[in-house]
């Protein structure tokens, strides 16, 4: 076989108490799409950040075309031919596409910035790859899919030998995924190497030539596409057999618990993030809202939970609304607060947790302990700050807190993300149990709703399978518009068509 384009040998990396990589190895060859698989927290992104120079490994070595990757961070790695498309885009919103592409390049004569040359080369790249972009448009106004195209073009502009894509499909609809995979195939046909991080097996197996699986920071499998299948890979990722949960039973809706009517929402940047959204939510149902990230989910979740006033329309909400925001570390929890203090964010003013104007810290700690026990949150100790928990455990803590409020309405944005498979299954069961009026977590101390009246649940997810599995009624959110998915389109392809159709409109 040809010599490896990238070889990583026994790489290790710790973050404080957390061992992100223990013994991770990877070998990828020119002309192949190489998939890097693993559960959330397995170390995929960490390994790729080591490759692109953003992190220095504690041990092991990295070879690019048989030469050690020189120290010197991202610049050195880029010079060695590594290009990275980040999951969270590394774009400057206020700059144009061409300016973003030109960033950090030596494009221009002397000091002058030669944007015309950037435009010309971008047009050339567009032609070769078939990735359409408007080079003069500011990035801030682009759709998420277009931003990803910019990221890919930005990487290709530097003519990398190895292109790393971190979970690129989470921001794409099903049809766009096919199209991206076509582009990747044409890139490897030119002799480049594509490293593709993912966790959806069916998707990955459609495009990958070889597969490396990480589990808890170690490489547990490295094989060609032809010798692996989805169940085998799942076993390798999780370390044991899995059984797929049966589809949740569709529920009969109860009384209406919330209504938003003709709502328009202004986003951070002053643009309308969502417009003309009308939605009724009933007790005992899960409203599933699918869609590609960045189409107004965050803003709509904030409005549905009463955290943000809408710019237009009317909102009628029940007394207690729980919100599980997507960005737990910047939104749900305070990283520097300990467990009880993070619980107090939700409970500091309810009757069970205060004595007059004072907080009853003893009761608060008791509540924290119950939530930690019930949701199996692994903590280094009672005084531990939220920051010292792993991502998955932070998420469990947050979910536990929000369910413990005994809400009338629960709004959750990608709540399964960051959880390992067992925890995600546990949370899924909890949601199903909750809508059925089960015990929920109401006895954790918050009081309020009688346990037999189930809440209404709104579930936002970029994972269409999750929405289809759990949603009693299913919608897609596209560029801030909420579209009901009719019964005959209740499948990923159908939802994808709705998303694309509206995107063109």
């Amino acid at each position, binding site marked *: 076989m040809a010599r490896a384009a990238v070889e990583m040998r026994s790489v290790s990396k710790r973050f404080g108490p957390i061992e992100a990589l223990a013994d991770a190895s990877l070998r990828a060859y020119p002309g192949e799409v190489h998939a890097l698989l693993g559960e959330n927290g397995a170390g995929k992104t960490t390994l790729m950040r080591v490759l692109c120079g953003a992190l220095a490994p504690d041990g092991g070595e990295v070879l690019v075309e048989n030469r050690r990757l020189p120290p010197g961070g991202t610049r050195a790695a880029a010079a060695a031919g590594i290009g990275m498309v980040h999951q969270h885009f590394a774009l400057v919103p206020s700059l144009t596409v061409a300016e*973003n592409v030109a960033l950090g390049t030596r494009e221009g004569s002397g000091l002058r910035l030669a944007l015309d040359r950037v435009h010309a080369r971008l047009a050339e790249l567009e032609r070769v790859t078939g990735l359409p972009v408007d080079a003069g448009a500011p990035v801030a106004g682009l759709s998420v899919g277009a931003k990803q195209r910019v990221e890919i073009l930005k990487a290709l502009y530097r003519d990398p030998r190895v292109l790393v894509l971190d979970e690129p499909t989470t921001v794409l609809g099903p049809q766009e995924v096919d199209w991206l995979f076509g582009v990747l195939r044409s890139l490897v046909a030119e002799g480049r190497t594509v490293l593709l991080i993912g966790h959806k097996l069916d998707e990955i197996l459609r495009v990958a030539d070889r597969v490396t699986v990480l589990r808890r920071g170690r490489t547990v499998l490295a094989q060609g596409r032809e010798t692996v299948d989805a169940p085998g890979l799942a076993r390798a990722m999780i370390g044991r057999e899995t059984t797929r949960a049966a589809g949740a039973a569709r529920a009969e809706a109860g009384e209406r618990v919330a209504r938003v009517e003709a709502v328009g929402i202004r986003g951070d940047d002053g643009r309308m993030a969502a417009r003309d959204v009308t939605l009724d939510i009933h007790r005992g149902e899960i409203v599933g809202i699918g869609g590609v990230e960045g189409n107004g989910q965050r803003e709509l979740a904030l409005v549905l939970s009463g955290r943000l006033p809408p710019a237009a329309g009317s909102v009628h909400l029940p007394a207690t609304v729980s919100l599980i925001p997507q960005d737990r*570390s910047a939104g749900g929890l305070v990283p520097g607060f300990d467990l009880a203090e993070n619980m107090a964010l939700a409970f500091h003013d309810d009757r069970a947790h205060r004595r007059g104007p004072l907080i009853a810290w003893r009761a608060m700690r008791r509540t924290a302990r119950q939530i930690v026990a019930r949701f199996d949150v692994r903590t280094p100790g009672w005084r531990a700050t939220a*920051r010292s928990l792993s991502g998955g455990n932070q998420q469990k803590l947050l979910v536990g807190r929000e369910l413990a409020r005994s809400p009338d309405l629960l709004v959750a944005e990608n709540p399964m993300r960051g959880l390992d498979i067992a925890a995600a299954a546990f949370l899924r069961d909890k949601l199903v149990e909750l809508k059925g009026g089960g015990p929920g977590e109401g006895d954790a101390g918050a009081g309020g709703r009688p346990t037999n009246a189930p809440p209404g649940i709104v579930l936002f997810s970029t994972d269409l399978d999750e929405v289809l599995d759990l949603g009693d009624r299913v919608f897609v959110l596209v560029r801030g518009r909420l579209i009901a998915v009719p019964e005959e389109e209740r499948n990923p392809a159908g939802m994808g068509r709705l998303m694309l159709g509206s995107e063109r409109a």
Partner: protein
Amino acid sequence: MDAAALQAFLEASVRLAAPLALAALGETISERAGVINIGLEGSIIGGALGGALGALFTGSPGAGVLAGAAAGTAIAAIFALFAVTLNADQIIVGTAVTLGGLGIAGVVYQSVFGATGTALTLPTLPALPLPGLSALPVIGPALFSQAWTTYLACLLAPALWYFLFRTRWGLDLRAVGEEPGAADAAGIRVRRIRFLAVLGAGLLAGIAGAHLALAHAGTFAEGMSAGRGFIAIAVVVLGRWNPLLVLLASLFFGAASALQFELQAVFANVPYQLLLAFPYLLTLAALAGWIGRSRAPAALAHPWPPRSGE
């Protein structure tokens, strides 16, 4: 207002605008790179003292300006060392650098000239009439017969505009101030750019201070910066982080300050202490009315690298 008064008013407006413009243009660059330097006041007073000492010991006001620039840069370097290299909080470090700058300027001044110090007389920057233009009636002597530092401010505005919006370095610098993470991923050295931007701002603030001592007063007094560093930061906001608008905003403030003297003459019964408060009140009023939807660089005052382990 007769022609002579108008001429005096215009001349004073431009003269008073120059130090503000120099400091604010520098601050524009550093804020565009994501660093708010509240220590600007320290660099200005340092520049004033440096300018005074330099001019006094060499006898040349030009050398004084150089010394002032060096002093302003040195004080900014302290700020950059803490706020950029050590990644400490910009507001806190800036406050300390302003306090320290005022203190050290006092210490040095008193050790050189003694605590009682009779008023210092310095060689001043001569007015440099521009051939032709300065012969124009009224505006000629008012606008085109200024110290060279004033012309420097006027030339710098378009130059810095070109730098920011038409050069590679300018693009990199703006990216650092908007999304340092994206800039870093593109291989840009975020800290280096921020450090250099702060030094540049200190250099200009130092020249501004030297201009105060050598073109305005012809002397040095403790606290003579009189809050100009803070007003300059407000001017950057009013100028929407655009060097050309920043220059205009500085001229507006220069005119307002010059008006203060006119008002003193016209309304003899308005106590002059209240007139002294006028520039600050005007700044506050302008901030209240002006902002609208103008937007600061997104990463202004954000540390890099980000503080938490995420």
